[in-house]
């Protein structure tokens, strides 16, 4: 099987040229080859499904919020990166949750959130546990929510072992997004990730377990694809175990019709109490992750804006307002008021058009001002959403990273700089963390920044710019690019 694996060592990290060449070789015509595709790159029916889903559309994630409810805690497989006893309100990673809800409680919580957060467009059931295994609870929750909020998108995340049994139910409930976690297509690899599965009233171990899981996962993917349900495949990148193998996974899931592939870094620490954490299995570095993502260009489209959120997260990706909506804060009776969400949707439709127009305008200006082969640059952006430079530097817990060259502005990834689960960081420590986080990037755009941090950043070789406060990201990033890479006026005239 290794004959099909492209060696990661032979590929350069993240260069635009190698990406472009790889995509040309594979016949991909989109410049970003990701979920940020605008309507012209996607058939209208698919765009209609994803345009308001923050996890499926990079553009949508600037405008729309998701919430997860933890109603189905039972699971049918054991993964070495999961510890079922964990719960910490300050911890942000998949599978972690602070309260488990009954379907009735969950439905009430969803309504309460919809009344407060007009950006809400998606309800997901994503663990802890497996949403398709504990199907009665997942189904009951979806039914209750759908009665009151018929326009909310329902989606679920599952390991696929039980999913083939419920595909008809998915269709009945108009669920058109499903995330399958697929970490391998070679059961031998699976043996290092899954100690056991529970299937048809029996616990299976070792190769047999991974063989069954693999077959059911492929069956799930095929069934969902055949019925027109969009499938996002999540894969956990585990260095030394499935990192190179994920290239094969990427190709196979694309071949079987997956819409999006989300390769996430393993989060692993001894204090998480997972098998991997206790064994000292490390997660990949940001550079290793990007290398793999770049190597996958031409396969299934990659999701690069995933925040690996908690299983009870509420809000825009990258923010979690879950603590505002714990069950003790949700009223016993809530009535849905659609006004706010409808107004917001109308506003977003117009705002998105304006942003696209602004981006096209900025792009045209860049084309006339820089040489076609100008080197690409990375720019960090502090944003609260809405596709604008609208966050104070000191409030940023993450930066969105954009790559810009003569061909345009593209979202690359986000980098977190919150020190969750540590706490007590002073200003200076935070700044050190930010500088570390921004490795390889020398420009940051924010709405405002104090003189002290700006000077400290400058000393570290990072220029913080607040001149583009509240501008669209594309407008601002393009302007910075032109300022840095623009041809001198004379050269422009003679060019």
């Amino acid at each position: 099987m290794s004959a099909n694996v492209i060696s990661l060592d032979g590929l350069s990290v993240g260069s635009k040229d190698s990406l472009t060449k790889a995509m040309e070789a594979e016949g991909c015509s989109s410049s970003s080859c990701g979920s940020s595709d605008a309507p012209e790159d996607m058939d209208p029916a698919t765009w209609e499904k994803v345009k308001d889903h923050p996890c499926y559309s990079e553009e949508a994630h600037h405008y729309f919020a998701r919430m997860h409810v933890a109603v189905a805690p039972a699971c049918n497989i054991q993964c070495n990166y999961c510890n079922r006893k964990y719960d910490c309100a300050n911890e942000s990673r998949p599978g972690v949750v602070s309260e488990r809800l009954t379907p009735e409680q969950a439905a009430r919580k969803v309504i309460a959130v919809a009344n407060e957060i007009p950006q809400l467009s998606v309800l997901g059931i994503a663990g802890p546990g497996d949403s398709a295994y504990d199907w009665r609870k997942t189904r009951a929750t979806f039914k209750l929510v759908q009665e009151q909020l018929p326009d909310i998108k329902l989606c679920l995340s599952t390991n696929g072992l039980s999913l083939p049994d419920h595909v008809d139910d998915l269709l009945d409930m108009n669920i058109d997004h499903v995330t399958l976690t697929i970490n391998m297509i070679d059961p031998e690899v699976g043996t290092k990730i899954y100690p056991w599965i529970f299937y048809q009233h029996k616990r299976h171990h070792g190769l047999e377990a991974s063989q069954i899981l693999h077959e059911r996962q492929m069956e799930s993917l095929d069934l969902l694809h055949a019925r027109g349900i969009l499938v996002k495949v999540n894969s956990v990148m585990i260095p030394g175990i499935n990192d190179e193998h994920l290239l094969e996974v990427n190709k196979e899931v694309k071949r079987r019709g997956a819409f999006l592939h989300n390769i996430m870094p393993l989060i692993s620490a001894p204090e998480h109490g997972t098998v991997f954490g206790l064994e000292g299995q490390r997660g990949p570095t940001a550079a290793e992750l990007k290398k793999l993502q770049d190597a996958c260009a031409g396969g299934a489209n990659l999701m690069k804006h995933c925040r690996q959120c908690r299983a009870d997260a509420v809000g825009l990706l990258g923010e979690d307002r879950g603590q505002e909506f714990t069950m003790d804060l949700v009223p016993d009776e809530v009535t849905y008021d659609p006004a706010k969400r409808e107004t917001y949707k109308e506003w977003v439709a117009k705002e998105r058009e304006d942003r696209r127009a602004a981006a096209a305008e900025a792009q045209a200006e860049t084309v006339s001002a820089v040489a076609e082969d100008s080197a690409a640059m990375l720019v960090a952006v502090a944003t609260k959403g809405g596709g604008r430079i609208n966050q104070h530097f000191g409030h940023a817990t993450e930066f969105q990273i954009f790559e810009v060259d003569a061909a345009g502005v593209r979202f690359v990834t986000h980098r977190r700089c919150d020190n969750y689960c540590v706490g007590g960081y002073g200003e200076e420590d935070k700044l050190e963390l930010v500088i570390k986080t921004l490795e390889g990037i020398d420009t940051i755009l924010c709405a405002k920044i104090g003189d002290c941090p700006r000077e400290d950043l400058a000393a570290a070789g990072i220029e913080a710019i607040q001149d583009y406060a509240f501008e669209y990201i594309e407008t601002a990033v393009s302007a910075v690019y032109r300022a840095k890479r623009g041809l001198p006026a004379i050269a422009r005239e003679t060019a």
Partner: protein
Amino acid sequence: MSLQIIQSNCTVCGACEFECPNAAISFTGETYIIDPELCTECKGSYDKPQCAEVCPVPETCVPA
């Protein structure tokens, strides 16, 4: 002839309740318990007790 759930190990995921063929497992509001009157250790239904087979924590569903 019955199994019991070691409370300090239980993650309250409910998989055991879901799998029990005798409806012997119920949620008390805080944790799951097995009714020894109803538990058959799955004899006659399955090869092994289902609660112990599905439980994610070792040594949690054990003979009483």
